[in-house]
Structure formats: structure tokens, C-alpha cells
């Protein structure tokens, strides 16, 4: 008689959510696996974590994780997460969303949450395009790339996300590709344990949409590209970490200490409460 053996990460996945929407070869599954592995290796209490996502393929991830989770409107996971974190600072609040959600429609929220140093973790699956809507150009699409909305080639300069995060005030900034599973998992673990606004960019393949429009090929071709182009350049200048066809600088770029918004808020409240108490 055969016994059914559970996958070691099953406990981290919501039973009802396992039929995911992602295409074969999509990088999002690797990210989910890395995130679940990080939780497992940290023996994280699933009752004390909230996963928040926005709109897009990766946006469905909140529904797949066996924790409290919320799938917001397009671009708004960061301010929602800010509300959760400030309302209950005991919770670990993680935003997992895409490049379009976090940096086009939601770009303003990203820079302000980083500036405030709200203790939330933001993990961005960057696939260089809007996959769910059929492969339109986005804020990270490289120059000259043809997409369905840049049929003659993209003329917009893309964001260098690690530079943007560092410049906005994030205390932890890392970039890995979906090829770097172990290092990505380590970065997620580090971010989860760090106090302050932490950002991890995950360069993720989108073989079915982006791969086809750019003729970059299937998931294996993407992996080969990541292998060939990635250069581990830990603590190098984020300004020089642009992603190009030839070069993907990866590694940790920022790891600093700075008082969080919640800490400063708590201190302020204690001050004000004492003053108010003294005055009555």
C-alpha cells in the first residue's frame, strides 16, 4: 500500500488556492517556493504574518499562502500594508507584487513607504512587462524591446529598481534572479528578520508572454540568460546596477540600520501621553 507523502512546503500553502493561474515555466512559482522555504527555515509563525499583493499574475500569490492575506486594487498593496502594520505592529507584513503594480501605478506609494521606513517587506517579481494583460510595455521594459504596445521598439528608459529603492531610503535592498533560489531565500530570510523597509527585486522569467513577444524563448532560455548575464556584485553602487541584456547585477546592495516609522511613532506617542498626563 502506498502512503501519500505531503510536500514539505504544503503547510505554507492554502489548500483551496493550490490551482494557481501561472503559466508553465513562469518564474512566480520559484518565488513562491523561495518565500515558503524562507518561512520554513525561520520556523515562522504563520498566524503572525500578513501577505499583501496587488494586481497582476504575481498578485494572486497572497491567495496561495496559508496566512492572513489581502489582494488589493492595482498599485495599492503598499499603503494597505502600511495601515495593517501601523494598526498592529506585532504582525510581519509582506507585500509581494509585480513591477507594473509597484512601480507604475503604485510608484508613489513605494517611494513614500521607503522614505518613512515603515517596517514592511516588499518583494517585486520583475518580468519586464504586464504579463496578465498580454505583454504590454511597463516601467522596467528595456529600451528598444518590442512589446504589443511598443511594436516599433520601446523608447522609454526603464527604472533601475535597486537604485530607486536605495535612493528612496530602504534599509535593505537586494536583487536576484529566479536562478538564484538559495540566495534569494537567504535574502527573504534576512529581510523578514530586519527592522525597516526592505526591498527584494526578483528578476523572473515570463516565457509565455514576454518570452514570445521578445523572441527570448522558453523558461530554459531565460535561465541560461540569467546564468550568463548575472554578476554577483554585493554592496556595489546601486546607481550602476542597471539591468541590460548583457548584464544583470545581482546581490545585496543596501543593508543599513535606521529607526523605523513605528519605533519613532511609538516613542512620540509615549512622549505625548506623558505630557498629556502631566498636564491634567
Amino acid at each position, binding site marked *: 500500500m502506498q502512503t501519500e507523502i505531503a510536500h514539505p512546503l504544503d503547510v505554507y500553502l492554502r489548500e483551496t488556492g493550490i490551482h494557481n493561474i501561472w503559466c508553465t515555466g513562469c518564474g512566480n512559482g520559484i518565488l513562491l517556493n523561495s518565500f515558503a522555504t524562507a518561512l520554513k527555515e525561520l520556523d515562522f509563525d504563520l498566524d503572525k504574518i500578513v501577505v499583501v499583493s496587488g494586481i497582476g499574475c504575481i498578485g494572486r500569490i497572497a*491567495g496561495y499562502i496559508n496566512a492572513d*492575506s489581502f489582494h488589493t486594487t492595482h498599485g*495599492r498593496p503598499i*499603503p494597505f500594508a502600511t*495601515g495593517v*502594520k501601523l494598526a498592529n505592529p506585532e504582525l510581519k507584513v509582506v507585500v509581494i507584487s509585480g513591477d507594473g503594480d509597484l512601480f507604475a501605478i503604485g510608484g*508613489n*506609494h513605494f517611494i513614500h513607504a521607503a522614505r518613512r521606513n515603515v517596517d514592511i517587506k516588499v518583494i517585486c517579481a520583475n518580468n519586464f512587462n504586464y504579463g496578465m494583460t498580454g505583454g504590454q510595455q511597463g516601467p522596467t521594459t528595456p529600451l528598444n524591446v518590442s512589446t504589443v504596445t511598443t511594436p516599433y521598439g520601446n523608447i522609454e528608459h526603464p527604472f533601475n529598481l535597486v537604485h530607486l529603492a536605495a535612493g528612496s531610503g530602504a534599509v535593505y535592498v537586494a536583487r536576484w534572479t529566479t536562478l538564484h533560489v538559495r540566495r534569494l531565500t537567504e535574502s527573504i530570510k534576512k529581510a523578514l528578520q530586519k527592522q525597516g523597509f526592505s526591498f527584494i527585486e526578483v528578476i523572473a522569467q515570463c516565457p509565455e508572454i514576454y518570452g514570445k513577444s521578445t523572441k527570448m524563448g522558453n523558461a530554459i532560455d531565460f535561465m541560461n540568460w540569467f546564468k550568463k548575464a548575472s554578476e554577483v556584485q554585493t554592496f556595489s553602487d546601486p546607481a550602476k546596477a542597471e539591468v541590460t541584456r548583457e548584464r544583470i547585477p545581482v546581490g545585496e546592495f543596501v543593508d543599513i540600520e535606521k529607526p523605523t516609522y513605528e519605533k519613532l511613532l511609538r516613542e512620540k506617542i509615549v512622549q*505625548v501621553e506623558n505630557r498629556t498626563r502631566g498636564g491634567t
Partner: protein
Amino acid sequence: MSTENRALLTGKHFLSGDLACAEGALAAGCRFFAGYPITPATEIAERMARRLPQIGATYIQMEDEIASIAAVIGASYAGLKAMTATSGPGFSLMQENIGLAVMTETPCVLVDVMRGGPSTGQPTMASQQDVMQAKWGSHGDYEIIALAPSSVQEAFDLTIEAFNCAETYRVPVMVMMDAIVGHMWEKVIIPSEDNIKIVNRKKPSVPPKEYMPFKPEQNLVPPMAVFGEGYRFHATGLTHDEDGGPRTESIRVQRKLVQRLCDKIRENSDKIVRTKGTMMEDAEIAVVAYGIESRAALSAVRKARADGIKAGLLRLVTLWPFPEESVAEIAKNVKTIVVPEMNYGQLVREVERAAKATPVTFLPKLGEEPHRPEEILEAIKGGTM
């Protein structure tokens, strides 16, 4: 003085509508405010920025109104009573996430201190131009609750009621305050704790394994778990089943969910709706008004009575769900209904619809000033002819 006592400033005060609204929120148990500066609602944020830290609670100024309402929804899911306050342009920005709050059944309160629009319009000048937007501003079919204070005392009282409705029905509730009520100063009596009715959301009574986050119980409203308490539930702006999981291609689930979101307000409207009739018993002409306009209307009705005209006032305290039955009822007994509004024709459409065959005279008003009682009196007299 304990922290909780500092939240409730029991006693007699001289306040503006904006400030009374902030105190009403604190009295109701609001412990999170996220907002963005905007005339003429900024005083609410300023009061909250000063008051919330005094009671150990959180004020945050967000980067815009979209973020403000998003943070409010997040704070509500993390268990706090939460509010934001804004005016027309900010209210427009909030509309998409108002839909999210409706879809995820988030108890929360939004105050809109109405100024002149469209667009940037007249920031420092009052209007009642957002009353239809309150109902219809977000996309899709939905119902919300909106209340319209007509005095500073009522700004306090109705903000408490807004929180109570939000907690009872798990719905965003709007306090639609024209900027005149927002900025005028009047006496406010803040009652003692025992004399304020506070409603808190119903929590699940089942263990986490059995919890269905969107399975309705009493009044078609599902009990609400809080993040971090072990329920491990999912909420989404997508069409979802009772288990919270997205069902984007199910006709059955879409019908069932959207109907319930609407029906939990429609079917409970007799419990929600409040109107106040003055001299309506034998009235042959009724004025239907709300907010600051209802005060000019009351004065006009008194003048009409002094002139021997049987006029009465039906003041709408609840704007949404629209007090359809109250209007239909008075329409049976009066010859004409007069509707003065500080806009170019909004809630009058609802009055006309409810009044059926009874003629309705609309008095529009654009710009800061509400109607003078004489203008309304003239319309009352016109209705007797």
C-alpha cells in the same frame, strides 16, 4: 485621567463641524486616521494628528488620498476602527478603493467636507455637489451608507453613528458634510460614556478551521476575523465565494455576492434610514432638504406657517440608502415638494422618483451661499397656487 477618558471629552464645547466630527470619531472608538491635506477638511486631520497620539493611537499623513483610504482599509482589517477625511478632489481619488472596501466588506468611515466642483473648483466655498458621487462614484453595483449633518452637534453625533453603521453592516459609511457645517462654530455637548451607543463588529464564533470569511449570518453580514488571530483568511477585490477565494468566472458567485452586498443595505434600510419631519402632520407643501439647506428650509417653513400656509420640512439625515419610503409617504399627502440643494440638481432626482406623481420644484444653488429662507418661502408660495 485614563487614556480612554482622554478620548472622550465629556462636557460642553464650542467647536466647528470639522472638529466635532473628529471628536465624534474618537468617541466612537476610532483609533486610526490616515489622510492628506485638503481644504476644507484639513481641520479634521489636524485635530486627529493632535488628539490620536494623546490616547496612544495612530495618525498618519499619507502621500495622497488613494493611499489614505488604502491604509484605512488595512487598519480596519488589522482590527481598528479607522477613518479618513477629505473633500471633492480627494473623494474622487478614493473612489476605486471605496469599491474595494465595499467588495471586502471593510468597516470604515469617510468624511467628505463638500466644496465647489467640478475639478479644483472653489476650494474654500461650500457645496452639496458630491452627494451622487457618494452613491455612484465607484464602478459596479453596490450600496453604501451616507449621512448628512446639519449642525455641529450632528457632526459629532452622526460620526458616531457612521462608525456604528460601518461596524454593523461591514460597509464604508460616508459623512457628507457641506463646508458650511464643516466650518461653522456652534455649541456641542459631548455626552458621558454611558450615554453613547457604541457598536463593534461581530467576530467569528467558529474555530479558524471552520471560518468562512464571507459567509453571512445575521442581517446578511459575515462576522469579521482580524489579521493575526489565527484565522488565516484571504480577502480580495475579485469576485469571491464565501471562503474568500476568487471566482472570476462563476456567474452564480457573482450574482450571489453582488446581490448580497447590495441587499444587506437595501433589506436593512428601515433600520438604517433616519429622517426628521417638522410640522409635517397637516402639511400641504413639503420642503425636502439636508445639511445646511435644511436650516434655511426650516426658517422658510416657519415663515410660511406665520403666513397661514401649511408647510412642513422633511429633513434627510440619511442620504443613502435614499429615504424612499419617507418621501413616498409625504408625497401622498402634499400638493408639492420643494427641494433646495447647493448643486445643480442631484438628490432632487431621487426625490422625484420617490414622489411619483406629486410635483417637485427644484431650487438649485451654485456657489458658497445656501438658499436664503425667502427664496425657499417664495417657492413654497408658488406651490400653493
